[in-house]
């Protein structure tokens, strides 16, 4: 199970990096969204995917049973909220850039890098 999850995370990272290296704005957006998913999935998984009881003391069948650690889920929730916010910001930003600079090619966004 853990091996499959690790494989999925690796695939997510690979595809996001591949997409971010492309020139198109649209592929960049997809790449960034996948990168956000991959990081969240990564901390969720590394926190331990277990079959332990939920961390509620009243629900635990007996006190000897191991309880799952709730913190990685709390961390991933926070991270999801933040990364979705940044992704939405980026989508609007790229739309605005597309309107103003009139290009869809990331390589043409170089007017601030040139030595005048």
């Amino acid at each position, binding site marked *: 199970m853990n091996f499959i999850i690790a494989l999925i995370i690796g695939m997510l990272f690979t595809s996001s990096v591949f997409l971010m290296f492309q020139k198109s704005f649209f592929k960049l957006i997809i790449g960034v969204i996948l990168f*956000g998913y991959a990081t969240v999935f*990564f901390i969720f998984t590394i*926190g331990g995917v277990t079959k332990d009881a939920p961390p509620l003391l009243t629900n635990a069948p007996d006190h000897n049973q191991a309880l799952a650690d709730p913190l990685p889920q709390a961390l991933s929730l926070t*991270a999801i909220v933040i*990364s979705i916010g940044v992704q939405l*910001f980026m989508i609007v*930003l790229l739309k605005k850039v597309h309107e103003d600079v009139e290009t869809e090619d990331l390589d043409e966004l170089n007017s601030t890098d040139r030595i005048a």
Partner: protein
Amino acid sequence: MTLPELPYLMFPLWILLFGFIGSLFFWKYWKVQQAFAITSSALYLFTAGLLVIAVYQNEMLALQIGNWPAPFGITLVADLFSAILVLISSIISLATVIYSIQDVSKSRKKNGFYPILLVMIFGVCGSFLTGDIFNLYVWFEVMLIASFVLIILGNDKAQLEGAVKYVILSFISSGFLLMGIGILYRLTGTLNMADLASVIPNHPNQPYIIISAVFFFMGFGIKAALFPLFSWLPASYPTPPISVAALMAGLLTKVGVYALIRFFTLLFTFDIALTHGFLLIVAGLTMFFGVIGAVAQNDFRKVLSFHIVSQIGYMVMGLALLTQWALAGAIFYMAHHIIVKSNLFMISGIVKDINGHSLLSKLGGLYRQYPFVTVLFVISAFSLAGIPPLSGFWGKFILARAGMESEQYLIVFVSLLVGLLTLFSMSKIWKHAFWSDVPEGETIQLTKSQLYKKKYLLLIASAFLTVCTLLMSFFPDLLLTLSQKASEQLLDPQVYIKNVLNQ
């Protein structure tokens, strides 16, 4: 004089938060928002001063949010290092707010410039004060999202182009941070920095902790603009209005450096030869390539932006040497750099208002007609280059001495060479903008009387920072004593652990 017991740690955060929320209620009245920004940044300066005094008297302050005991809840901690940085950031914030009154256009102010500025300073202050690694990530995001908005506010074409690079690379660096936090949590089961510091030295799986150190290095390295990761900085920093650029140039990258210093003195000190040896190489490369970039540029603001990169190298050099003098030098250098760099950006804004350009080939005539601006520039530029007796000299001198003591002659040589190249690129600005006459076909946009009548606050803000530079230059012992005490605390993690965990 001893201070009464009050939550000094919370005051700066409360003030900035109240300033932000208060100004949100007056969304349509930008003048009220401006008043909120001025009062809260002035009060921020006052409370930051109180914080430094309180920390100096008590060795360290720690506060458990919600009264949860230390390793479980979120902790706010201020040691001298963070207190000094909070104080410096408050000086810069006040100067920037004063500067922005006559610099930022009305349309930007109407679209919420001041509330967002306050949020950004709030994020910076919080990152300095937190004692929990996940909370640090959240403060970073508060700061970054506010800076995204500030960097595109106004929708110039150049601003948008720079912002694309800035936003994407910042997002990726946050991803690296998160993964580092995840690995560290998995290995140690805690997020509290003091708890981590007490667990890591005896940890059985230290090679895995190095992996998380790599992730943190990448995350903070992008934010601090270290050698291979700095390309976003010169692309985006010169684009927004000068008030924003000055604040970002002074503060944001230094938050990355702060986090690097905090993590690599408190947590990752079990294999110094590997981690800090690597940091030393990166420091040298950052210094060198940053200044080479600055020498190649022909635009006032871009030269300054590349200098930020090269000066980050000096701070990381202090961290990598990891002796008491080296860390004291790094802290002194950070304080000096934040003030001088922001001031130079402000002066570049004044020059742009006078000449209408920031391209060096189109500038000229300032020395003859604007002696006051020239004096402001000379002091900051020579201080940046490290001419004695100005503040940059003390910072570089302490770092070079620390390097000699650790027998790292190569990095000392590189740092002195970089100082020379810094002087070269500063004299390029001096020659084109100040010494030469106005080029043919160019006209002065702002006469002297207009400058003194309409833009006097720009000069006041810049003069305020110049006075701070001069104070640091001629009375360096005050800041030096503080930074030496701070570096003592940084080198002894037991002090940090004791103050946070044994309440």
